[in-house]
């Protein structure tokens, strides 16, 4: 298992779990946007200098920063 923030551009993965230590409100927001265990997630872009990265989950394109993407655990698909 790796963190979502570590996922390489264009790589496919499946969400395994989300840390419990993020505030409940933001956990709900992730659920609203489709970031839940079992969903497929792809990294579309990794701009340099620690800028937010773009991910696609379902039919939703999201931009997440390290603060949140490092709390999402995934397994890369080969």
């Amino acid at each position, binding site marked *: 298992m790796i963190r979502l923030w570590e996922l390489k551009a264009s790589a496919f993965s499946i969400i395994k779990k989300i840390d419990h230590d993020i505030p409940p409100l933001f956990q709900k927001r992730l*659920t609203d946007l489709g970031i839940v265990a079992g969903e497929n997630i792809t990294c579309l872009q990794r701009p340099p*200098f620690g800028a*937010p990265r773009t991910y696609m989950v379902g*039919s939703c394109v*999201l931009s997440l*920063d390290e603060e949140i993407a490092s709390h999402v655990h995934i397994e890369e698909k080969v």
Partner: protein
Amino acid sequence: MNTSSVLLIGKPNSGKSLLFNRLTGLRQKVANFPGVTVEVKRGQMENIDLCDYPGIYSLNAVTEDEKIAVEKLKAGMVDPSVSGIVCVLDITRLERSLMLGLQVKNLSIENNKPVVYALNMMDEMIRNKLDFDLVAFEKELGHPVISVSAKTGQGLATLTQCIQGLAGIVPNGQTIAPDQVARRAKEISAKFMPRAEFLLRGQTRLDQFFLSGFFGTIAFAAIMLALFQSIFTWAEPLMTAIEDSIAWISTVVTPLLPTGIIADFFNDAILGGIGSFVVFVPQIFILIFVIGLLEDSGYLARAAVICHKPLSWFGLSGRSFVPLLSGHACAIPAIFAARTIESPRKRLLTIAAIPLVACSARLPVYALLIGALIPATTFAGGLFGYQGLVFFGLYLFGLVTALLVSGFLSRTLYKTKSDAPFIIELPPYRMPGFIPIFRRAANSAWQFMAQAGLVIFCVTVVVWVLGYFPNGTGHLETSWLATLGHWVEPIFSPLGLDWKYAVGILASFLAREVFVGTLGTMFGIEGADENIAGLAENMQNSGFTLASGVGLLVFYAIALQCVSTLAVLKRETGSRIFPIAIFAAYGLLAYVLAIIAYQIVNLVA
């Protein structure tokens, strides 16, 4: 006729606001400010009052604007005057839309309030030759579903009809357990839109460019430069036209008026005071128009992503970008727009920074001072000019000051370890609808002009009366205003300014743009020739120095001279101390830096 209200809700970027504009046309009560829908808008559809709320992803509100929308939605459920709900679903993002749609279905059944679903973005389906089984979908939801395209207008007549008959619909069906909503949304979406990702290809390709580290940054810089350049180049012909019209009115109307006090009042107070402000309205309009274009094209969300990292160095977030950009038009809607920031701390920092960015009320002051001080020389084949560069420099100065103040506050007064993370949905790129944006910009410019115009008119009349009496035109130095002015002159004499400027600055604490009108009136009374458009020239002839001008520019760039902004700051922060503290701090900073700037220019020149 009895009026009932219908609530319009939907996911952000579902095309809800465009649908609202389409359904209500010009019959809106509140013309909204640029930027996202942050206030409740009301529009008339015959005997129905349609209320547009900020977009929400679900009933779990995170930001202030979402809280407002959820609160109003829940209150509307038990309000007998609300006849039902229109829930907008974005067909290209069906699963996410249904997260909210199914929660609304639950509310509807629990409270016995009818709901109709407006399935928007149908034009995308047609363009991509995709089919959709509307009948089965309607059966699945158990509520009426109307397929529409807010962009092309398809299905709007049917939707209007359905809204009119909403009160007669009885909601039925079974509620879905809250923990099952996500699963159901996924199932329904998979069944009806199995190839949803197909619609995202175009967006993904554009994002590869606009969000890339290198090209994305260049594109961002180019777009911002074009935005500020457009304020000057596009507005130029309009401004000249207004100036010419004022001069024409003066030559035509003045001979018709009885000479003496009435003609003097007309020329000095009306044309000199208000006329010198109206000239700048085209610039305000263009700024709002271009921001509207960027917003509707979907680019602003990308700009927020690009700016997130640099803004975070100053304690702000990518979500602070839109409020800061809107602040260049007017601080008030920008402060409202800060409601979309999840973190209360970053929201407060953004609100504190907004009054420092160069709003359009500063434009007339900057334009006047630059016109009086900087030669209109152009170079590089007329592409650049000194005046334009100084303008750009002032915008940059405002932005840098705003960021530094925010960075300072985030490290001193508003320190905290844990904060809200950055999560933003990237909406699809769309061709903006020029006509609705044009209408919105015209409305905002008109509102701005009406509000500011009233203040300017009142101040101008007072200044004119004080400056005209007791000795009439041409005797400004012996007027009541001069007596008052000489008392306050010492405050601004460290900037090398005489009493006339002191009066102008003090009057402009109501609103910055009053400065131009006040000076226009005073020079109008003083001057033998009634050259209204030549205020800058009058100032040059009065011995206005470069050092004083630079000092004044610095002062106006920082000082919080706007009563309306202070009132909104109080309302949005719920604190009386916050606006007073920020007013005093920025005033002091402005004064000290202005004196330093004055001294430096004096030394160098």
